[in-house]
């Protein structure tokens, strides 16, 4: 199996798509594609979680989604990293 059928969505579920991706894709590839295709706000940082398995992804890893246990039908959600904007260190 060289491709996976996945559901990818934003946290508000305003954007949702059934996609076919190579098993060799990384989590970061998926997030980057979603940001570009859905024109998500560029000033926000995002994480990716696997809603089906209940695990988060390491976006700095080059590991393939295939090796991370992602399977056909899994739902992946792009969530914003939440922070307000004043420095108080």
């Amino acid at each position: 199996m060289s491709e996976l059928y996945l559901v990818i969505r934003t946290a508000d579920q305003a954007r949702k798509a059934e996609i076919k991706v190579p098993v060799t894709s990384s989590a970061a590839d998926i997030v980057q594609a979603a940001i570009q295709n859905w024109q998500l706000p560029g000033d926000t940082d995002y994480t990716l979680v696997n809603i089906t398995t209940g695990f988060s992804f390491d976006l700095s890893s080059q590991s393939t989604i295939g090796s991370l246990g992602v399977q056909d039908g899994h739902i992946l959600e792009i969530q914003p990293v939440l922070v307000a904007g004043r420095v108080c260190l």
Partner: protein
Amino acid sequence: MVSLDRYLRHSLIDWFDQDRLRGINVIVVGAGAVGNEVLKNLALVGVGTIHIVDFDIIEVHNLTRSILFRESDVGRFKSEVAAARILEINPDCVVTYSIKGLWESINIKMLKKFDVVISCLDNYEARIALNQICLIAKIDFINLGIDSRYVSIERYPLRLEPDCCCYECAIPPSIYRKINERYSCGWLKKIAFAEKKIPTTAVTSSVAGALCISLLLQCDHPDCLRGAVKIFFDTITMRSSVVKLTKKNDCMSCLEYGRDFTLVEYSPVGDISPILTHSKNNVDDIMIQTSDKIITDTICRICGQLKEVYDLASYYDDSLTFCGKCMKSSMSVQIQDMFTFTEYELISFRLKRLPKYIKFKLGEVNYILEGGNHE
């Protein structure tokens, strides 16, 4: 035993351990919108000891989201007012506060007396610094984040599971790029950088406060969440998700700060010779890492003018790169946080301000020598 009258309704919950809560020591960093909700809930449920850190002053726009502040409090310190109000809510609590910044308010020795640090901060740098110091002290870290719609709570149980995922394991690489945008030369604040203000409401801050305290309480419940977890809540659709946070194998923070350290108090800073007395190591084989970046000097690339600085970089901005003689931003700034022992010995006595701690490895032992400008 705690007062049965005050906690009567709690005592009706079979898994609720009031005595355990009474014995918990919590640090809340940030007494803004989320901090207010967390503090209010800590006091209501009867957490024993609460320390509040915030140097900021109450402004009128805080009043739409801050249950502990009144209009008459505008202009007063957030942590001072919050401490007074939660004592009114529950006089059983032991409450202390600091009106200094995070780095001046907290140290590793002090942290070890606490059970959990709750981050109600509003920026990445302070969260990263807190995460690192929690990794060293091996103390639980709860991080809260909100915007106008979403709530995110992450729990890192570093005390019981020191090898679990840490805050830096869980954040995407884009955050480091964002932090770098705010600094020139690696660590000088850009004076012209405009901070983005994130809109928030009492809805998201109160949900964050409630979920955070629920995480503290649920340790007593048989169905409680285990390990490093993230709860994400959408206050519009009311959907939520819970995921286990995955440890990053090459996380630099886990590798650097997650080890076992021998903590030594030192004064004056730099006098590490007692530790070296019995060492067979060549002292210059020892690399010393400072907790804070240090500016040693600046030199103009045009006129060659040299200026000694010997101070912590966090106190400077990019105006330091301006040469008054050449009237250009032509100064190169020497910033470093790694020194040989001899280098550090030479500079440490000239430093205007001391790093919070220094760390180094001697034989098989990782040392942290803590000094610096903290309470």
